[in-house]
């Protein structure tokens, strides 16, 4: 079908979910009160704000991921032609991985991969 299948799939997802939610809205009877609207945190009234500071570890891993993900994108075109190019491809990828691995070791040494 070609690229138009993407439009078809997005529209299919949107119609399916909106019809499901619409039907649910029609058949159910909604009532609200103060207790019902509270977030569920084991039945205890919520303490403080929800959107507070979180452990920095999550963000550190996201940062390291960014480097490696870009690396992965660079590997895709290489992987397609690796067999055709031959030994030169292997040399190139060894150099590439070596530099990358140095960065990885640096991050490891700095303690970025340790969960605090």
């Amino acid at each position, binding site marked *: 079908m070609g690229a138009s299948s*993407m439009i078809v799939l997005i529209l299919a997802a949107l119609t399916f979910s909106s019809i499901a939610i619409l039907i649910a809205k029609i058949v159910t009877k909604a009532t609200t009160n103060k207790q019902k*609207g509270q977030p569920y945190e084991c039945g205890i009234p919520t303490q403080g704000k929800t959107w507070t500071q979180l452990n920095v570890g*999550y963000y550190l891993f*996201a940062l390291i991921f960014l480097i490696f*993900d870009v690396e992965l994108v660079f590997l895709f075109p290489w992987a*397609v032609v*690796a067999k055709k190019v031959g030994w030169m491809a292997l040399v190139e990828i060894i150099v590439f991985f070596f530099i990358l691995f140095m960065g990885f070791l640096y991050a490891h040494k700095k303690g970025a991969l340790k*969960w605090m």
Partner: protein
Amino acid sequence: MGKLWEVFMLSFSKISQLIDSWLRATFNATWTMVIEMVIAGVCVIGLFAALGLVLVLMERRVAAWIQIRLGPNRVGPGGMLQSLADTLKLLVKEGMTPDGADKFLFNLAPFIAMMVAMLLMAPIAFAKDFQLWDLNIGVLYISAVSSLMVISILMAGWASNNKYSLMGAMRSGAQIVSYELSAGLSILTVVILSGSLNLNEIILSQSDGWWIFKGHIPVIISFVIFIIAVTAETNRAPFDLAEAESELTAGFHTEYSGMKFALFFLAEYINVFIVCAIGATLFLGGWMPFHIGHWEGFNHVMDFIPSSLWFFGKTFFLIFLIMWFRWTFPRLRIDQLLNLEWKYLLPISMFNILLVTVMAILGWYF
């Protein structure tokens, strides 16, 4: 009988061609395209709903079987209609939005989850000559779109105004982005060996044996890494930290109820199906029957089993494997989880890439 078998064999591609030629003869080009798009959309929605119902039931039956109990067996013959009854129950439940939640993002998140799950269907070959989009960069498309999944989870967790949800979403974010790396690297081994990003060409390159047999040790290593990584990427146990029931109630979808919860649930199961389909396509030959080198007779006998049956058989085998994990391994802690990825899986898969490159250049595969 022979005629019927013939129809069954070529079922999907034949039927689609018949519909296409009939439409072309009856309507003009524009209308043909529009009608085909509508048919494709309806078919995909049908497949979606059917897969969701089947997988939920399968999960419960497999769990019951492993734990030596009966599982759902009251609704319909042998409990077959249990998931339909559950859907009906979820349909009549009230969909609530907690006070102080970001209403727009809260309601948008299930739509995004469904959209991502649906978009992943595009390049998958369900049977011989039967796929929505014969994309020349299919593998790249899959890894690009599947990483959008994390956005809907982060959105849902952040917008809920619930600390458990937020915690679950953050964990899930760290986990999904980490395991995406080794999933991508293990997929690359097959790309190196087959020299193509097109899923159809990768399947055709396995016509004399699946890559898991042809590529022996390195491909088996990458297959194992792939299965571990996709189990983590789809937030399934033992990597289900995002919705660890005993710690975070239900993680990022704690506050969701009714149909919005059902949509998340459905998207999750569809994602499991899709990653298993990708695994089956890359490593186990997709719709390609089990062939051995040049054993023409044997290969010919295997060709009698329809290609769609091969595809769904392999996919459901992998799904069963992932369900089996859930009842075998205990849940990991977040630091153990990240250690496993960054200190073991990532270096191993990088080394494995080098190994495969050497193997591909020397021609040390069958």
